[in-house]
């Protein structure tokens, strides 16, 4: 057998072995065996010295071709095996993706806080400031400065926790009206504020009454503030909290610190006015009280009612939450069952 035949034989045998190889280690062995210094190719090439001058370059070239071909085959096989090995590894790593994820810890804001934050964001966006007052107030600010002198029958509308004859647990966040108005310099523009916080009433707790609840008071006083502005503002509130273009309906009411005074109803967000259990089949939900600031209130805070006027409103986040989430018992808000609280986990 001539050298060329031997080489041809080596090539065939090498390709065959490479093809048959099943793992990378074995493939490496083949490489060493075939192409290494003690390998058959080298041995064959050592026999080149016996060839004629003419034959030598031809066989040499052939031998190099075979070496390259085997090296390529080795590389290709190596890549193939590496891919296969990786695939096998990945296959072995397959997970049941339907198993539940690892629990993480996450707390939630209280549902009433969420409503307050929503309102605060809304009003801050409209250029209001936020004024947080004290929960223990003076009778003077809670009532008298709001045009509710002692023995006014409207004081019956709010049963009050008194501490002393002149100090009480505030029954509304409205005291901030007087406290802010007396501080405000109207030369710097109108006063636009909201005051969120806890309020207290001397009530027995049951499904619809709570001795502690929340209120967000709003006040705008300036030279050009109208009742139409109040109506428009309340429409924005309704839209922000309930998401739809809900109509606002005003009805006459009475608060000593506003005149005219109104109750505001919004179209029931659930039935959009068709009538359902939530709105007791009226199509409307009573959500807040409001009105144009009473001239006496302005006067008592040193604001000239001939020049300035404005509107005030007071809304109840507890009531909003009860309406919005169909919560039937107001005590749920203050007993803090974590199964209740953690339901309100929708962000944005």
């Amino acid at each position, binding site marked *: 057998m001539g050298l060329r035949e031997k080489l041809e034989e080596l090539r065939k045998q090498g390709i065959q072995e490479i093809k048959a190889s099943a793992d990378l280690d074995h493939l490496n062995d083949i490489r060493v065996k075939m192409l290494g210094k003690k390998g058959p190719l080298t041995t064959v090439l050592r026999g080149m010295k016996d060839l004629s001058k003419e034959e030598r370059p031809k066989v040499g070239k052939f031998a190099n071709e075979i070496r390259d071909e085997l090296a390529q085959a080795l590389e290709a096989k190596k890549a193939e095996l590496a891919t296969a090995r990786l695939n096998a590894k990945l296959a072995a790593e397959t997970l049941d993706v339907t*198993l*539940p994820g*690892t*629990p993480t*810890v996450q*707390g*939630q*804001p*209280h549902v009433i806080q969420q409503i307050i*934050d929503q309102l605060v964001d809304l009003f*801050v966006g409209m*250029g209001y400031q*936020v004024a947080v007052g*004290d*929960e*223990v107030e*003076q009778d003077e600010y809670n009532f008298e400065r709001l045009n509710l002198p002692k*023995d006014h029958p*409207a004081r*019956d509308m709010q049963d009050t*926790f*008194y*501490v*002393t004859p002149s100090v009480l*647990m505030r029954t509304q966040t409205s005291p901030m009206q007087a406290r802010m108005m007396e501080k405000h310099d109207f030369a*710097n*523009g109108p006063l*636009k504020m909201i005051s969120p916080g*806890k309020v207290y009433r*001397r*009530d027995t707790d049951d499904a619809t009454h709570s*001795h*502690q609840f929340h209120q967000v008071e709003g006040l*705008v006083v300036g030279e*050009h*503030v*109208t*009742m*139409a*502005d109040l*109506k*428009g*503002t309340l429409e*924005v509130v309704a839209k922000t909290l309930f998401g739809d273009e809900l109509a606002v309906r005003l*009805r*006459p*009411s*009475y608060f000593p610190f506003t*005149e*005219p005074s109104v109750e505001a109803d919004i179209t029931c967000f659930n039935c959009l006015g068709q009538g359902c259990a939530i709105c007791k089949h009226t199509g409307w939900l009573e959500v807040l009280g409001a009105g144009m600031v*009473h*001239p006496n209130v302005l006067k008592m805070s040193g604001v000239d009612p001939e020049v300035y*006027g404005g509107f005030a409103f007071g809304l109840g986040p507890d009531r909003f939450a009860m309406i919005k989430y169909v919560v039937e018992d107001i005590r749920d*808000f*203050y*007993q*803090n*069952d*974590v*199964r209740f609280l953690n339901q309100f986990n929708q962000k944005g």
Partner: protein
Amino acid sequence: MKVSYQWLNQYLPLEEKGIQPAALAEKLARTSVDINDVYSPMDGLKKLVVGLVVACEPHPDSDHLNVCQVQVSETETLQIVCGAPNVQVGKKVIVALVGARIKDNIKIKRGKIRGVESNGMLCALQEIGFSEQVAPKDYEAGIWFLPDDAVVGDAVYPYLGMDDTIIDTDLTPNRGDMLSIFGNVNDLAAIYDLPNGFESHPVVESDEAMADQLSATLADEAIAPAYEMRLIKHLHVADSPMWLQIKLWNAGIRPINNVVDITNYILLKYGQPLHAFDYAKLPSHQITVRHAQAGEQLTTLDGEARSLQASDIVIAAGEEAVALAGTMGGQSTMVDEQTTSVALEAAIFDPVMVRKQARRLDLHSESSMRFERGINPETLHQALDEAAYWLAELAGGQVVAGKAVAARPQFADREITLSVRRVNHVLGTELTMAMIEQLMVRLDFAAHSLDDDQLVVAVPARRWDIELPADLYEEIARLYGYDNLPSTLPTMTKTAGGLTETQARLRASRHTLEGLGLTQAISYSLTTVKRAQQFRVAPDQTQPMQLDYPMSSDHVATRMSIISGLLLDVAYNHARKVADVALYEQGRVFLPQGGERPLEEEHVAGAVTGHLTPANWHQAAQPVDFYALKGIVQTYLQNLAVAGEITYVADSSRPEMHPGRTANILLDGQVVGFLGQVHPSCAAEYKIPETYVFELNLAALLAAPKRDKHYVHISKYPAVTRDIALLVDQTITNQAIVAAIKQKGGAYLKQVQLFDLYRGEHLPANKKSLAYTLTYQADDATLKEDDVNQAFEKVVAHLTTTLGAEIR
């Protein structure tokens, strides 16, 4: 007030104009006063007809039942067994036919009573829906007799006024004028622009002169701005006619007798309370209105003996108090069947005095309610005279000519000048002078313009709630219609709005804790005195602020810490088998400081129990312990970015806390809070499991200087670490070791981190082993091995000498 639709129709063409009760109620709610309810007394009733008892035999097997034959139509007579004691042949009665529905939706079925067939039921008023307080007769007295001219077989409802519709209005305190038919008629006439046909009956006086038969004086003019009396003699007390009884019971007032009923009728019609004294029983005919003497006794109509105070107001005959002015009459002078003469009082009492008296004695009546909210002085005479008219008409009385007058009602129109420009400025409307004048005409308020902007409106005394232009704006707005107001937003500028820094940080504080796994709770600020004092950040002997007149023993004092409320929340969850609870609360605590009001301090607190994350298929549960909570607090404080140094110092002095598992939290040496495990005894009192809590004086933390927000350069040179393990006494704290390391750490020591703590087996009993990684890094060069070694050796030496540490 329960307003009768039929009564309104006597004066207003509502039905004629197609204004149905439901629409009327809706209109009132939108324009005038709130509506509680709209209902007809016959709602839910069915098959109740007029019957004539034609025969009545005792039941063979009963000593109190009767077997009646009752004619219910021209052709039909039914046998009905009846247990009423007063059933009588020849009477027209209320028959519930088989299939009828009576009170509470009870269905009448054919049946046998003690073996005798009964095809219906004869009814008392209580059985067809009248309340015991309103039905004129006691239920025990038996069935109700319809008028003799009632037509057999007709539905009974019209005979009882049950076909009326009642509009139950809910008044705000300013609209006292709506506590009368008169007021409702006026308002509806304005709302619907209808002709007002309200009618009064003028009195017919006899020839007999008053002379000195009755006199009235005021001891204090402030008590009664108006006080007048009439004397009616020779009357016969009897039942009122049906039309009058119906008007009363549909308004929720029980008919008593003609005299009392007439006073109540006038009360409803005019809103003017009247009181009838039995003239003969008055100890003197010289009437005085005065304050009570302290300790004076008076037995009121309800039989209660009342001890009076000097602030109370009474009507006295001679020296003796015979009635509580404006609140309730006295028993000794009450009208009864024997009464033949009455002294009839029409007055206006001071609202505040009546209110105080009614509240003090808990005597809230239809009369006191009206005095408190105001009486129309314009109609006092009309009301008194019409009452006298009816006493003559219905009780055969003779009205003595003239009146005993202590004070005549004083009233005048109130002139208010409106500016059309101002009206539009406040309401945001574009009303013209003519439109506003038209609205005043509808209200029956006289008005005349001064120029093209100013309008002078004369508001009559019957609308005493209207005092200012703003009150008229409301009248204009409601009659014009709130629906017709445009909707706009305030157009002014120059307000930036926004949260203050503190407000923004309070919000961020909440978000941080939520991110750390705590859910926000809102608990009650009012609690018991004991709980209010527990868990204070800065404990002292101060008593909490207490309510003067609490409603419940659970809520009497304002909290001085937040934790106690959170523990009640934990208990609530624990009682409901919710084992894992992680709550925080942010809010005010109330710290009395000797002033009029307590200091309100913003605090934040947390309570955790059970597991932070529950066990699951691929992770063990992570139980709460001291360090879990401390981790939360540390991260929280890191987020709060106070510039000062925070340290944790063991504190065994807090009575509600575990003495070995509590740390005070200090900011630059000042206690700003604490954390730890609730003392097991305290936990037992709260009925809660092992629970860890913290509370921080957030106000103090927010007031402290903030860490600078400067960027810290990150070194590009490699860091080198050295580990050190040391054996120290159990009493030596981590904080002491870290401080010692840092003290001699040198300029390149960047970080000290504890990575192992061991005590127990293989170590002496009083020793523990701690292992730290020290990280060295320079900002300007790669550290040389020698530099690090030298620095590290200094630390080792220092730990050995100062803490007696054995380096392992």
